[in-house]
């Protein structure tokens, strides 16, 4: 069975690109365009991995992680955060909240994305 990846991101271009690439590699891809929607889909779909943007309307990536940490089953789902400029404060907080890895938009590289996804859940 194909692994399910949920992308939570409000920027259309990025969402588009990630979806195309990951689908090509054979993953099932689900989309959410803000934190609230993302959290709902996490609870309903139980993805194998979440790519989580931080700065989003309605609910931020941090808030989503805080909500996830409240339930045991949700806590286990690995999260790779997407940070705008990779500020140490942001990365640090994400790690504290349990994020497994991170991507930095100012240095975005599709190859890196794939590497980090495979590292978390395999092909």
């Amino acid at each position, binding site marked *: 069975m194909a692994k399910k990846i949920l992308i939570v991101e409000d*920027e259309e*271009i*990025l969402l*588009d*690109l990630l979806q*195309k*690439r990951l689908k090509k590699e054979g993953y099932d891809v689900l989309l959410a365009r803000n934190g609230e929607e993302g959290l709902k889909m996490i609870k309903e779909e139980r993805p194998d991995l979440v790519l989580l943007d931080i*700065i989003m309307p309605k609910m931020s990536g941090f808030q989503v992680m805080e909500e996830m940490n409240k339930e045991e089953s949700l806590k286990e789902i690995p999260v790779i955060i997407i940070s*705008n*400029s990779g500020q140490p404060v942001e990365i640090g907080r994400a790690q504290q909240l349990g994020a497994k890895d991170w991507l*930095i*938009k*100012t*240095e*975005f*590289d*599709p190859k890196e994305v794939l590497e980090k996804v495979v590292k978390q859940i395999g092909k």
Partner: protein
Amino acid sequence: MKEKQGEFKSEELRMGAKTLLGRELELARVREELEQKIKELEAAKEREMVLRIREIAKAADIKRKVEELEKKTKELKEARKALLNILEDVDEARRKAEEERNKTLAIIANLTDGLLVFDSDNRVSLINSRAEEILGIKFEEIEGESISDLSRFSSLKPIIQLVEEREKIFREEVKLHENLILEITTSPITREKERIGSLLVLHDITREKRIERMKTEFVSVAAHQLRTPLSAIKWSLGMILAEDMGPLTQEQKAFLQKTYNSNERMINLVNDLLDVARIEEGRYIYKPAFCDLAKICQMVINSHKAIIKRKKIKFEFKKPKGKLPQIKLDEEKISLAIQNLLENAIRYTPPGGKIVVSLKRKKGEIEFSVKDTGIGIPKEQQDRLFTKFFRGTNAVRMETEGTGLGLFIAKNIIESHRGRIWAESEENKGSVFHFSLPLGLTSSSRK
């Protein structure tokens, strides 16, 4: 012919098939090329998208940094504004303080009393012009010097010992020289309970002292002048009363006796005034010798036995068991003090009352007391008991004569012997007058 047509057709078919195959291959090749181009285009598109994503992210980052900078700039501006306000306030406070300071300096400079200020290390920090005048010293000569250094100025010596770690305000009369007597007041200067210096006020009382002296001298001279005629009157009246000038009727005798008594009272007043004058001039001379206080008391009591009996007053003398140690004292003056106290008791106790005189040996001193059941002293007047010319309002009502000097003189005598004198009294119940004399140099400790 048919065969040739048949051969032709299969050749055509063969040619057609070859062409079709060729075309198919070409199509496949073209398709491959196209697919390859599409792949390349898609890869290019992706690359472009990646670049766009990075650009957008960078722009967002810059925006965030600019926002932060603007916030910080705003904060700095506000801080600067606040600082400027504070500076303004500080400036204002400084001007006010300077104003106050100038005011104070002006007051100090123009005071008619001398002012000396010492700092917390007892160094001279300020002296006003009046003080410079009084002491004959300029500020520059003593500025910043500590007290010990000041002792080189003879005019400052008496002042120096007044400037010590005094917690309270202290006032003393100091004679700097023949024509300069100062009343010096020292007080500590404190800020929030900590002593940061001392203030000395030099008040010139030379004139007051001179006037006081003139007053005393006048009393002395007047009293002396009065003595002679009073003595003459006493002498002549005495002779007439003794019937040396001829017999007298009972009526005449009684009449003259009253005159004689009046004269006696005048003589007593004059003597009291002279005593007071002498005390104040420091000419009240004491001749100390070792005496037995009990014996002195007994002698005074004896001389008043008659009047006590006449007034029908019960009397008791409580002597201590055993002999009292002898004390060095002026017998005549102590007698006078005891006499004044006893006479007051007798005078102000109505007939039928009781007087008790007691002598007690106490630790390091002998205590004498006279207790009466007389008119007492009103509570609100008790603090003026031992002052010159004081007479209680109830005493004046009872007996209009009386100098008001007896207690003043007694106090002086007792205190000159380093003793204490005090009284307890309740109006209409009675009074107790005490004095104590220290044993100090007794004949036994003289060894």
